[in-house]
C-alpha cells in the first residue's frame, strides 16, 4: 500500500474542516444554511478522518510529510503513525455522532445566536485536534495546541451573557495558558539538546540530557499535559468550563479534548523521552489513583447533571493514568510485554471514555434541550416522554460504571489485570502499591455505579419534579441518531473486543516493540485473556448471551404466572397519606446523603435551615434549607495562590510608576545586561 491514499484522505479531512470553518462563517446571515454547512462539513471531515485513521493503523509503518516553512526550527511536518492513527480514530467516532446530533441541536440557535461563528470555532477546534494528533514538529504542535485552547475558549463562553460562563471561560483560558507555558519550556529543553524541533530528533537528544534536566522535562510535560487532562489537583477548570458550553461541545471537550493530555503524555514519555524513571511512573500511577477516587467522590455530590459528568471525566482520566503509569513502570523494569498490555488497557479506556462520555453529554444535552434545566432536582419521569434518550443514557451509564458486558468493563478489567501483574513483576515494597491501586479502582467503580444510579434515576425515573419535566418532549430524530451511533459503539467495543484488539498492535510495536493482541485472545477468538502469568479470562459475548439464556426461562415463568393469576397497576404505598406527589420523592441530595456523611472529612458539608413559625414550632410556615460542601481545592490551594499573586502584583506596581524616564532607565539597564550576557558567551 503506498502512502498516497492515506495522505490524500488525511488532507481531504483537514480541508473539510477548513472549508467548514470559513464557509459557515461566510453564511452567518443565513442560519439554516450555516447549520447545514457546519454539520455536513464536520460529518465529512470526521468520516474521512476516521477512514485515514483506519488506513494508518492498518499500514503499521509511519508515514511522514514535511513542508519547510522558511522559519528556523519550524516546518509543517506531519507524521501519521499508529499512535496518531489511534487518537484520530478516537476523535472521529464521537465527532461523527456529534455532527449528526448537531443538525437537530443547533436548530434552536437559529435566529437567536450566530451559528456561523459557532461553526467557525467548532471546525477550528476539530482542525486543531487533528493537527495536534499528527504534528511532528514541536512548534506546529504548540500552534495547534494554542488554537485548540482558543477555539475551546470561544465555545465555552458561547453563552457569554451568563456571568458564570464568563468566569468559567476566564479560568479555562488561564489554566490553558499555564499548561501551554509548561509545554513551551519542556519542548525548549528538548530542542536545545537536539538542535531541531522535529519530534523524531528528540529520542536521541533525550538520552544526552543530564538527569536533572530529564527530571525537569518530565515535570514540565506532566504539568502541561496534566492540566489539559484535568488531573487532580489541576482540575478546577474542568467542572467549571465543560458544563457551561453548549452540550454538543461539552461532549467533545470531555470526550476528546482532554485526551490530548493523554496523547501528549504517551507521545512524550514513551516515545520522545524514551521512557521515564520508575519514580515518575509511580507518580503517574498515584496521581491517577487520587484523580479517580476524588473525581468520583466529587461527582457524587453534584446535582447539576453536566457538572456531574464533568467530574466523571476527571475520574476516568485517573483510570487511564493508572494504566499509563503501570506501562511506564513496567518499561523501566524490563517487562515490555506487561508494559504493552498496560498501554493497551490505558489506550482502550481512552477510546471507550471518548465514546461513552460523549454519549452521556449528548444525552444530557437532549434533556437540557427538552427541559431547559441542568438541575437534576427539577427533573424526573423523563423516561416516559423521552424513551430513546433514556435508553441511550442508561447504556452510557452502564458503560461508564464499568459494568459488563459493555466497553467500560473490558478496559477496567484489563487495568485490573495489569495492576495484579505488577505485584508479581516489580520487586521491593513498592509492589504493594499495585493491589492497593486495584482496590481503589474497585472503590471508584462502585462509587461510579452509585453515582449513575442517582444520575439516571433522579433524571429519568419516578415522577416529574418540575413543570419543565412534565412538559418534556423527545429530542429530534437527528439527535437520537447521534446518540444511537455511540450506543452501538459502546456495545460493539464491549462485545467485540477480541476482534478489535489487533488495532493496538502497531501502536505497542512502535512504542514498546511488542505485539500483544495474539496473547490477549483465546478460546476460539471469543475470550479475552490477560496474557500474562497472573492470567484471567473473560468473555463479554458469552456473558451477554448467557444472561439472555438465563433470563429467558425466568421470563417464561413470570409470563405463566401473570397469565394465570393476573397483573394490575396500583398506587404506590405512601404510608396511608393521600396520594404520592413529587415532594415525597427521594432527591439527588438525599441519595448522596449517606456518602456525604461517611466522607465528611473530605467534603466538610455545611447546611443551614431557617424556619418561620406562626403559632407552634411543630408547624413551620416556611422552611429554607441550604446545603453544600466545601470546595477544598479552590479554597485551600487556589485561593491562597490567587491572593499571593495579587499581593505580589500590587507590590510590583511600585516600579511601574508611569514616568517615561523610569521606563527609559529600565530599557537601558536591560540592554546593558543583555550586552554583557552576550559578550560573556
Amino acid at each position, binding site marked *: 500500500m503506498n502512502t498516497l491514499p492515506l495522505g490524500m484522505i488525511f488532507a481531504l479531512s483537514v480541508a473539510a474542516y477548513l472549508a467548514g470553518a470559513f464557509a459557515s462563517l461566510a453564511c452567518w446571515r443565513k442560519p439554516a444554511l450555516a447549520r447545514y454547512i457546519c454539520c455536513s462539513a464536520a460529518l465529512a471531515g470526521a468520516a474521512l478522518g476516521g477512514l485515514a485513521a483506519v488506513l494508518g493503523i492498518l499500514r503499521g509503518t509511519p508515514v511522514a510529510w514535511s513542508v519547510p516553512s522558511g522559519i528556523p526550527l519550524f516546518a509543517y511536518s506531519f507524521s501519521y503513525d499508529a499512535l496518531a492513527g489511534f487518537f484520530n480514530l478516537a476523535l472521529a467516532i464521537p465527532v461523527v455522532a456529534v455532527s449528526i446530533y448537531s443538525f437537530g441541536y443547533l436548530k434552536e440557535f437559529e435566529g437567536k445566536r450566530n451559528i456561523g461563528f459557532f461553526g467557525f470555532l467548532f471546525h477550528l477546534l476539530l482542525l486543531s485536534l487533528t493537527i495536534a494528533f499528527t504534528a511532528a514538529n514541536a512548534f506546529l504542535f504548540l500552534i495547534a495546541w494554542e488554537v485548540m485552547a482558543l477555539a475551546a475558549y470561544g465555545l465555552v463562553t458561547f453563552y457569554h451573557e451568563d456571568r458564570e460562563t464568563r468566569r468559567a471561560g476566564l479560568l479555562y483560558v488561564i489554566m490553558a495558558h499555564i499548561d501551554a507555558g509548561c509545554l513551551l519550556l519542556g519542548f525548549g529543553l528538548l530542542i536545545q539538546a537536539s538542535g531541531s524541533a522535529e519530534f523524531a530528533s528528540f529520542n536521541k537528544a533525550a538520552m544526552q540530557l543530564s538527569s536533572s534536566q530529564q527530571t525537569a522535562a518530565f515535570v514540565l510535560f506532566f504539568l502541561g499535559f496534566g492540566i489539559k487532562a484535568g488531573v487532580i489537583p489541576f482540575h478546577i477548570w474542568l467542572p467549571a468550563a465543560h458544563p457551561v458550553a453548549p452540550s454538543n461541545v461539552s461532549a467533545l471537550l470531555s470526550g476528546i479534548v482532554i485526551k490530548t493530555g493523554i496523547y501528549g503524555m504517551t507521545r512524550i514519555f514513551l516515545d520522545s523521552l524514551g521512557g521515564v524513571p520508575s519514580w515518575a511512573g509511580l507518580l503517574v500511577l498515584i496521581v491517577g489513583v487520587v484523580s479517580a477516587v476524588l473525581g468520583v467522590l466529587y461527582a457524587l455530590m453534584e446535582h447539576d447533571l453536566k457538572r456531574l459528568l464533568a467530574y466523571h471525566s476527571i475520574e476516568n482520566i485517573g483510570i487511564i493514568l493508572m494504566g499509563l503509569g503501570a506501562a511506564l513502570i513496567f518499561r523501566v523494569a524490563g517487562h515490555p510485554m506487561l508494559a504493552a498490555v498496560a498501554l493497551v488497557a490505558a489506550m482502550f479506556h481512552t477510546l471507550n471514555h471518548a465514546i461513552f462520555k460523549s454519549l452521556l453529554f449528548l444525552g444530557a444535552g437532549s434533556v437540557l434541550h427538552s427541559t431547559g434545566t441542568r438541575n437534576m432536582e427539577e427533573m424526573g*419521569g423523563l*423516561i*416516559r416522554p423521552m424513551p430513546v434518550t433514556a435508553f441511550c443514557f*442508561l447504556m452510557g451509564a452502564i458503560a461508564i*460504571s464499568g*459494568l*459488563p458486558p459493555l466497553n467500560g*468493563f473490558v478496559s477496567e*478489567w484489563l487495568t485490573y*489485570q495489569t495492576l495484579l501483574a505488577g505485584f*508479581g513483576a516489580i520487586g521491593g515494597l513498592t509492589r*504493594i502499591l499495585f493491589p*492497593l491501586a*486495584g*482496590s*481503589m*479502582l*474497585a472503590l471508584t*467503580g*462502585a462509587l461510579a*455505579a*452509585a453515582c449513575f*444510579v*442517582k444520575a439516571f*434515576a433522579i433524571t429519568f*425515573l*419516578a415522577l416529574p419534579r418540575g413543570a419543565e419535566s412534565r412538559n418534556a418532549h423527545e429530542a429530534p430524530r437527528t439527535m437520537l441518531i447521534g446518540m444511537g451511533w455511540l450506543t452501538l459503539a459502546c456495545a460493539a467495543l464491549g462485545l467485540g473486543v477480541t476482534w478489535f484488539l489487533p488495532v493496538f498492535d502497531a501502536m505497542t510495536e512502535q512504542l514498546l516493540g511488542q505485539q500483544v493482541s495474539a496473547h490477549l485472545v483465546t*478460546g476460539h477468538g471469543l475470550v479475552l485473556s*490477560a496474557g500474562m502469568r*497472573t*492470567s*484471567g*479470562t*473473560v468473555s463479554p459475548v*458469552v456473558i451477554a448471551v*448467557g*444472561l*439472555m439464556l*438465563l*433470563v429467558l426461562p*425466568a421470563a417464561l*415463568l*413470570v409470563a405463566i*404466572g*401473570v397469565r*394465570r393469576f393476573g*397483573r*394490575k*397497576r*396500583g*398506587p*404506590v*404505598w*405512601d404510608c396511608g397519606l393521600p396520594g*404520592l406527589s413529587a415532594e415525597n420523592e*427521594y432527591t439527588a441530595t438525599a*441519595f448522596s446523603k*449517606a*456518602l456525604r456523611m*461517611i466522607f465528611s472529612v473530605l467534603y466538610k458539608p455545611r447546611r443551614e435551615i431557617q424556619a418561620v413559625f406562626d403559632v407552634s414550632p411543630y408547624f413551620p410556615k416556611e422552611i429554607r434549607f441550604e446545603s453544600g460542601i466545601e470546595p477544598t481545592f479552590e479554597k485551600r490551594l487556589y485561593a491562597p495562590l490567587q491572593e499571593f499573586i495579587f499581593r505580589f502584583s500590587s507590590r510590583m506596581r511600585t516600579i511601574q510608576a508611569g514616568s517615561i524616564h523610569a521606563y527609559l532607565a529600565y530599557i537601558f539597564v536591560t540592554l546593558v545586561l543583555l550586552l554583557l550576557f552576550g559578550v560573556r558567551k
Partner: protein
Amino acid sequence: MTEVLTNSALQLVLLLLVAPLLSGMIKTLKARLQTRCGPGILQSYRDILKLLRKGMVIPETASWIFSAAPYMVFGTATLVGLMIPMTTTRAPLSLFGGVLAVVYLLALGRFFLALGGLDTGSSFGGLGSSREMTISAIAEPAMMLAIFTVALGANSTNLSEMARIAVTQSWRFLAPSQMLAFAALFIVLIAETGRIPVDNPATHLELTMIHEAMILEYSGPYLALIEWASSIKQLVLMTLLVNTFFPFGLSSDWTVRTVGLGLVFYLAKLLLLACLVVLVETTNAKLRLFRVPELLMVAFILGALALISTFLF
C-alpha cells in the same frame, strides 16, 4: 461445547435447588439458637412457590426499568453461579469470567435493583437504593483486596485455576495471610448478603431497612425472582468463601463417586459457614448505619494486612 452446556445445566439445577435450602437452614438455625421453633428448612421453597402463584401489582408510577430489574438480578446471580466451582474444581463457565467478572456481574444486578427501587417514586425505595449502593461501594475495596490476596497466590483471577491450586495446598488456610483474607471476606459477605449487624433481613421497619426497602413495591412472581436471586447470591458468596479457603473434597474430575463425595463435603462446609453466620447474627445487634463504614474499614485493613503478610510468611 456440549460438555460446557451439560455441566452448566447440572450446576444450574444444583444452584437453583440448594440456594433456598441454605436460606431455610440459616433461618431455622437462627430460630433454634433463639429457642424458637422456626419455620422449617423448606420454608424458602414454599415462599417462592407461593409468590409465583400470586397476582402481581405494578406501581402506577413505574416504568419498564421496574420490570427489567428482577430479570437482571436473577440473570446475573445465576450466571455468576455458573462461574464458581461448587463441587468440582472446574466451574462450567469459568473460562468466560473469573472473579472480577463475578464481582462486576453482581454489581450489574445491584445497579438495576437500585434503579427499580427508585423507579416507583416512593421514598422507601430511594432510601433503600441509596443505602445499598453506599454500603456496597464501601465494601468493594475490602472485597477486592482479600480476593487479590488469594488470586496472587494462584497467579490467576480464574476461579477454576484458583480452586485447582487451592486443592494442591489444602492446609494453606493456616497461613496468616489466608486467615486475614478470610476474615475480611467474611465481613464483606455479611455486608453483601444484608445480614445483621449490617442489615436485618427480617425487618420491615423503615429506619432499619436496606435491602427490604428497595424491593418494597415488588410483588408476586417478580418478588419470587428477587428473593430467589438473593438466596442464590448468598449461596454464591458463601461458596466462594468455603471453596477458596477450604478446598477439601473438591473433585478434580467428573466421575459420579468424586462428584458425589464433593457434594457431601460441599454441603457440610456450607452448613458450617451458615452456623458461623448465624452465630454472628444472633450474638450481635444491628449497627447504626453510620457505624457500618467502620466495620467495613476493619475489613479493608484486614485485607491490606493479608496482602502485606504474603511477603512476610
